[in-house]
């Protein structure tokens, strides 16, 4: 009897005799088999199973030789406990590999029994996974690059403004100028730098200046001070802003002493000497970003101007301060009185050389 004769009329129930069942199973797009546990021989298989896992046709052929890589130990252990097991592999269909998933479960619940094997193609799932993976890699790469760019920009901006000002800029898109009642400003420049620019090779000269300023940056950072800017050979740093700090004068004094010591050591080791002049002054000042497209963070006020005067009145290798800073330093530092000086715009001031830290 051919299968066609079994085609049911719409009203009839399908007569599920052995022939029809075999025919149905043969037509399935799913591979099905029944396996004997222990011996692992295939007791039944439909056409799809035979097509996907063709064997040699030997009677004693086991499942393992038809499904390469199948972990029989684990499968056996799972079946004994009556639990399901699944395994993904590739089947062959017309010379083309098809990703498939085999699912094993005991044919009869509870107790030893034959094992039902169902196997379906998972190629659509694999394609979707592949797409998901390549897409998430793409997204990850973009995120990484974006983060790298963001870090780079942040680093650049932190070079020209203090962190708290940068945070304010980032959060609000703008910053407000701030007045700081007590801050200490350090100004430094190099003796005869203008002559050096004429007499020396510009490449090495600027490389040395760069080395020195980089060392100064590290010292400034070490004592919670801020480098404000450099103008040519001049270097300006401040303490006590943007975060108030009661030790602003002492911190700047420590920075100044360490800058001088760094240069002394450098000059002892290298042929071309660099002599600095340092001026320090304490007072109120304003800190703000200025400029729109080319902005810099800068500080303004008499305290800044007076620090510049201190520097001009300083001597090679000397650190000059006046009364206001002296009052804050005198307990912890050695200072030498230089006498009174008339300072344009500021009247008469008593000046001191900062010598060293006490104790």
């Amino acid at each position: 009897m051919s299968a066609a004769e079994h085609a049911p009329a719409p009203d009839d129930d399908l007569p599920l005799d052995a022939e029809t069942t075999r025919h149905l199973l043969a037509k399935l797009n799913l591979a099905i088999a029944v396996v004997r546990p222990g011996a692992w021989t295939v007791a039944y298989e439909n056409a799809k199973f035979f097509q996907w896992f063709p064997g040699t046709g030997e009677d004693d052929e086991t499942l393992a030789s038809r499904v390469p890589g199948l972990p029989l130990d684990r499968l056996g252990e799972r079946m004994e406990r009556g639990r399901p097991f699944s395994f993904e592999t590739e089947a062959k269909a017309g010379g083309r590999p098809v990703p498939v998933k085999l699912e094993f479960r005991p044919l009869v619940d509870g107790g030893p029994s034959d094992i039902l094997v169902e196997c379906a193609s998972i190629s659509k799932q694999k394609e979707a996974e592949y797409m998901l993976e390549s897409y998430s890699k793409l997204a990850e790469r973009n995120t990484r690059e974006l983060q790298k760019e963001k870090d780079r920009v942040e680093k650049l901006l932190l070079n020209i403004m203090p962190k708290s000002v940068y945070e304010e800029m980032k959060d609000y898109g703008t910053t407000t100028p701030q007045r700081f009642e007590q801050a200490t400003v350090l100004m430094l420049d190099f003796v005869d730098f203008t002559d050096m620019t004429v007499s020396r090779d510009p490449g090495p000269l600027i490389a040395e200046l760069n080395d020195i300023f980089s060392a100064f940056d590290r010292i400034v950072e070490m004592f919670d001070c801020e480098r404000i800017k450099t103008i040519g050979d001049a270097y300006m740093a401040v303490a006590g802003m943007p975060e108030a700090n009661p030790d602003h004068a002492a911190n700047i004094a420590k920075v100044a002493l360490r800058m001088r010591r760094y240069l002394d050591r450098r000059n002892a080791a290298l042929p071309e000497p660099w002599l600095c002049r340092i001026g320090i002054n304490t007072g109120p000042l304003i800190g703000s970003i200025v400029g729109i497209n080319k902005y810099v963070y800068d500080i303004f006020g008499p305290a800044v101007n007076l620090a510049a005067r201190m520097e001009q009145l300083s001597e090679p290798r000397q650190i000059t301060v006046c009364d206001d800073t002296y009052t804050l330093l005198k307990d912890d530092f050695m200072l030498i009185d230089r006498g009174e000086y008339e300072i344009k715009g500021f009247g008469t001031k008593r000046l001191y050389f900062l010598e060293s830290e006490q104790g």
Partner: protein
Amino acid sequence: MASMFEKYGGFASVSRIVSTFYDRLLESPQLAGYFEGVDMRNLIDHQTKFIAQVMGGPASYTNEQLQRVHAPHRINQAAFEETAMVLQEALEDHGVEDEDVRAIMNQVAARSSYVVST
């Protein structure tokens, strides 16, 4: 050191494991009831991210979140243990090494008090 998440091939692999896991959960007479009327797409999405998390991937669910989403389902210890066993089997079936399976299952077991509520 690469996380398990990376070691086993990232999100796509975790999604495969979780897919097997849910197929089995829905087949289990003991557990299927918990999933009646549940939007499985949404659940599988969260579960995939959660498993990715315990394997060292990018997601991050807090214990409070776990507690909040599980509390209405009144899950008992036996259901939790059965679910854990199904997960363990799904991990094993997808070739996760025994040692890593243990590490993941420890992470899961450590959160049982946030999932079990009766």
